[in-house]
């Protein structure tokens, strides 16, 4: 066990900061050892803040690599993680697409890398605003993917992510995604925890060599990633990644509980967070910042007598299949709202396609309304979300779907086109 470095002190403190700055504070609290970064909007202020921390001597012993592209970001992070250090980086949209080859590599190599994504819309046309299509494109990479709905959740989720990823039974990389500008560049109070308390929850790496079974050590020379023939264990290695994803659900619940007990902030069962679901007739599943606003919409409509609820999806990978079935069982009509696209998929939205897939053959006959909204940062107002709940209520009462559905999906908030 390594002793905490005495020159690395942080007392519990609440600051009013932007989402990106909360991410930087989390990396600092987690005592990351190697950071590699390349600027991209809207992520940039994460790595600017970390640069400030490192240059001011607030992160002693942390190496900060300023690379020339996102491909090199993830390549260098993979190198550093293979050598047994805790690593951090952040990116967005096009940057994530550019590093995509290495994203797969990190998971295949079973490295516990944590990366934050300030999500933005893919180009063309150029777009830098909130849209989760970037992170959704990593669905099948073997990374765990969670959404942080607010500023505090970014900080908290990063700390939990290291604990989950680095668990000896897991060893998979993890993304924490949040909305570009909507969260990355707005300010809210965030509690930065006392360093000793964080160290207790998430100890600095205890083993000099690195991760179990993964190390670059002349005492124990090891090959990483050499060619394997079709008759070798390739299929079995892949199955292990999937199996680990399934196991990770329990680990996520456990770590979320432990985090709640330690720091007093609860995040449902880790995978999802329900809001006023017990007597709801209809409900909507959201992710990201719009899941927070939806709680307000639920409160407002309940005052008007509507029996509505909502669910915040925290994890997209591993996908909370059992929780989704349970939610669907509780209501008569379930809306699934995507701020992302999955062109040509059954619903056009990544989450709604997943939910429909999870419900198939589950014995639950709840009506599902796929919703797509807010792409490329288009504002989704409180009124709009209230209306979505009313649309669901109408479906429940009359069986009538909105008349402007496209391919079975409700595209909400489109401009009027002649």
């Amino acid at each position: 066990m390594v002793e905490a470095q005495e020159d690395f002190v942080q007392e519990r403190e609440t600051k009013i900061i932007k989402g990106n700055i909360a991410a930087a504070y989390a990396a600092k609290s987690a005592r990351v050892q190697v950071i590699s970064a390349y600027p991209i909007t809207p992520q940039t202020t994460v790595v600017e803040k970390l640069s400030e921390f490192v240059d001011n001597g607030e992160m002693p012993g942390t190496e900060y690599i300023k690379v020339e592209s996102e491909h090199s970001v993830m390549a260098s992070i993979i190198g550093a993680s293979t050598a047994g250090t805790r690593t951090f980086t952040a990116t967005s949209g096009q940057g994530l697409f550019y590093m995509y080859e290495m994203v797969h590599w990190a998971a295949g190599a079973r490295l516990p890398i944590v990366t934050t994504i300030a999500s933005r819309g893919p180009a063309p046309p150029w777009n830098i605003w909130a849209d989760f299509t970037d992170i959704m494109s990593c669905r099948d990479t073997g990374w765990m993917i969670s959404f942080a709905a607010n500023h505090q959740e970014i900080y908290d989720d990063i700390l939990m992510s290291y604990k989950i990823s680095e668990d000896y039974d897991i060893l998979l990389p993890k993304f924490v995604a949040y909305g570009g500008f909507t969260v990355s560049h707005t300010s809210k109070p965030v509690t930065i925890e006392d360093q000793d308390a964080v160290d207790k929850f998430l100890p600095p790496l205890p083993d000099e060599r690195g991760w179990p079974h993964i190390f670059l050590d002349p005492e124990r020379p090891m090959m990483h990633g050499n060619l394997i023939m079709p008759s070798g264990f390739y299929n079995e290695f892949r199955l292990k990644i999937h199996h680990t994803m399934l196991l990770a659900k329990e680990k996520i619940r456990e770590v979320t509980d432990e985090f709640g007990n330690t720091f007093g902030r609860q995040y449902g069962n880790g995978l999802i967070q329900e809001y006023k679901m017990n007597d709801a007739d209809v409900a909507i599943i959201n992710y990201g910042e719009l899941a927070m606003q939806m709680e307000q919409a639920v409160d407002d409509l309940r005052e008007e007598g509507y029996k509505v609820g909502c669910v915040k999806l925290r994890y997209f990978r591993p996908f909370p299949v059992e929780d989704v079935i349970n939610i669907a069982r509780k209501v008569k009509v379930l809306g699934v709202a995507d701020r992302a696209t999955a062109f040509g998929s059954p619903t056009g939205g990544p989450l709604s396609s997943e939910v429909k897939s999870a419900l198939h053959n589950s014995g639950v006959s709840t009506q599902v309304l796929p919703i797509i909204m807010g792409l490329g940062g288009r504002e989704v107002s409180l009124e709009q979300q209230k209306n979505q709940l009313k649309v669901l209520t109408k479906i429940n009462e009359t069986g009538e779907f909105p008349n402007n559905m496209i391919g079975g999906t409700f595209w909400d908030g489109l401009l009027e086109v002649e």
Partner: protein
Amino acid sequence: MVSIKEALEKYQEEFFLAGNSTCAGCGLEIALRWAMKALGPNTSLVTPASCLNVVVGLWPKAAPNFPFMNMAFAAGAAAATGVSAAFKAKAHRFPGKVWEKMTTLVFAGDGGTTDIGIQGLSGAAERNSNIIYCCYDNEAYMNTGIQRSSSTPHGAVTTTTTLGKERYKKNLPRIMAAHEIPYVATCSVSEPLDIFEKFKKAKSIEGCKYIHILASCPPGWGIASEDSIEIPRLAVKTGSWILYEIEKGVITLSKKSKPLLDPSKRAPLIEYLSRQKRFSKLSEKDLIELQEILDLQWLNIASEIKCQENPS
């Protein structure tokens, strides 16, 4: 310079072991074997997509007796930068251990260096990442079946230049020197002691070191396996491949190349080219032109050296 006797007596330990699956007469094997003899056991290697990924042995077999990381094609220099940074971070947390003595090495082919890997390599050089980056240059994509790279010389036939390559070989060592890194060197697998010396020197220097080794490839060059040393030796003797070091911007010709400043000491280029099937499509006119280009290159080097010696 270390003598053959000394090298064989003092540096018997092998790190790139027998039983690997290189072709008979593979230049890469000689290059890596002598590089590792010079660098010793506290070395961690990163290799992007290249023959080396394959010839080290198929899983679970492994010929390298040192930490070895396979990497994606474009990612050699960046991954090594990460490894090197991690060793430094570990040295901070665990002082007095092996981590502060580690050398991070990249061994990449010419495709992984001069084409797809050049952006990452240029980034590492500009950052002066503490790595040794070695390009073993067999002058085409040999692993995928002899396709042209930007390091393929003019006139060479490959599976994607069936009439001989029109364009010329990219001069990567000079591009690396233009990054003002502390050490750039060229080697040939025909001169293993020169490889040994240059890797020893590179190890002693902090920052980004670049070593470019001409490595023969019998199937790719259309030469017999037993000529695998002789042909690159002819490359040096004809002056077609020049052995040198560049430190702090100053170029020094190495032992085998220095006498060739005198044109009469250089063997005619045709002696090198005519022994390889890949140059079989060159016309007489091409050969005369290539000899002229080479002579001009030597005139430039001579004047560069003269300038360095008499700056006024």
